[in-house]
């Protein structure tokens, strides 16, 4: 492979202590994500996806193994790699504008103004700058969070089931917007989900996890161009393959 590796997991293992007992959540995760790649981590609830992402984000330490970003070990959170949280991570006490400007504190007022209005436009929240999150719908809150992440122009964006709490229509439209933003910005995106369709719609590669302790069962490439046709036979084949890997039946 000639492309540059951006995020590299090396034998990442994580144990949690629970009531004095070790709970093995992740075992020997080896994974490389290329610069500009969109990768989904797919697996059943509780298999350790969030834990893995938190380790990559620097919020948790692996019990053994390590994560390298641009060849450097991850030791803590860093605004060059931004997290978009499963529950809303934006601040309810700050306006949309102030939330988005959070990571731009060192810049001049003019610069802040320019960047904030640009990303707010990008996520389609123009006109809501002075609104407080409480008055926004779930989908709009998640847009604010994406805008806050984009504002600092990070290399890598970690997204932990960012659309999990939204209704299916909002989810669908936010996915296509995320793809548009990804195409425009060329960021590396690691996206955690337990939703098979979501992973096929978004990712270039899908990393399928086993039940706990989470290991990588298989990495499934999605060789389809965006926008993807959800009715195509190729889509159906990948979906069946993923269901097989996850060990669930195709019929309800």
């Amino acid at each position, binding site marked *: 492979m000639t492309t540059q590796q951006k995020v590299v997991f090396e034998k990442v293992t994580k144990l949690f202590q629970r009531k004095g007992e070790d709970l093995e959540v992740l075992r020997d995760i080896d994974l490389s994500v290329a610069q500009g790649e969109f990768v989904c981590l797919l697996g059943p609830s509780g298999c350790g996806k969030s834990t893995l992402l938190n380790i990559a*984000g620097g919020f948790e330490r692996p019990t053994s193994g390590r994560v390298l970003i641009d060849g450097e070990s991850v030791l*803590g959170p860093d*605004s060059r790699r931004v997290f978009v949280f499963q529950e809303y*991570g934006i601040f309810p*006490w*700050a306006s949309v504008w102030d939330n988005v400007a*959070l*990571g731009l504190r060192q810049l001049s007022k003019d610069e802040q103004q320019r960047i904030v209005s640009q990303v707010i436009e990008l996520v389609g929240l123009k006109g809501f700058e002075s609104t*407080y999150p409480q008055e926004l719908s779930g989908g709009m809150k998640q847009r604010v969070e994406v805008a806050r992440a984009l504002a600092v122009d990070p290399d890598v964006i970690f997204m932990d089931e960012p659309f999990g709490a939204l209704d299916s229509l909002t989810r669908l439209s936010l996915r296509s917007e995320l793809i548009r933003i990804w195409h425009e910005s060329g960021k590396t995106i690691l996206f955690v989900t337990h939703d098979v369709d979501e992973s096929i719609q978004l990712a270039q590669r899908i990393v399928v996890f086993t039940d706990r302790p989470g290991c990588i069962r298989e990495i499934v490439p999605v060789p389809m161009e965006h926008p993807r046709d959800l009715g195509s036979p190729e889509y159906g084949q990948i979906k069946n393959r993923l269901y097989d890997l996850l060990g669930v039946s195709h019929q309800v």
Partner: protein
Amino acid sequence: MNYWPLYVSLMALAVVGTARWQSARQQSVLLPMAISCFLVVLWELACRWTQSRIFPTPGQTWAGLLELIESNRLWGDIAASLFRVTWGFVLAVAVGIPLGLVVGWSTRTFRALNPIIQGLRPISPIAWIPIAILWFGIGDGAGIFLIFLSSFFPITVGTMAAVRNISLVHQRSAMNFGLSGLELFRRVVLPAALPQIITSLRIALGVAWLVIVAAEMVGMDSGLGYLINDARNAGSRYDLVVATMLVIGMIGIVLDLLIRRLERFDEVRWGYATR
């Protein structure tokens, strides 16, 4: 025989009976007024049945209230009580909120100081009265000190708890965007804790208003608590006693309404259930 209780009850009954046709706003004003009218009527009837010579009727209490308002005594005592409560409360806010923020945020400081704070907290401020007088003498100093104590603990403990409740996601957001030091406090810790801090201010002010009256009854020579004691001692003027109690209640309501205005700011409204 005077029949006003009958007329008042009938009017109150009419208000209650037509409640379903009133708007929500009207209900929340008219219904409490109607209930209060019933209570006053009960009070009047109780006085008539027991033929008490000592306990004042509503009419006598009203006359006592007017007498208090006309003599300049009442205003001076209200001012004295409010003065002590204001300063004691302001000092408690100035010390309690920063202390609560720091102790709540830093786990080591929390481990060191929390047991001490929790140990001092159950001591009633009233128990401090002798010490307050010993240190500050009879006067404003002792009152301010006691109010400081009574507000300090609810405010500090409330602020601490608020900080320790800050959601992990918000803490991580702050870390992710590189917030630290004073900026972390200004942008995340304080605003995240503010709704709960305001609730603790409300509780503290309520306690302060309870304590000041007790303190003035025991160890001061002015203020509403002193007025109650004085009215009883100087010729068993129970009409003035009850009138002063009503004044105390009214001022308590006003104080609570004032402090609740803090809950309306955009920066904190998210912290309260909307109902």
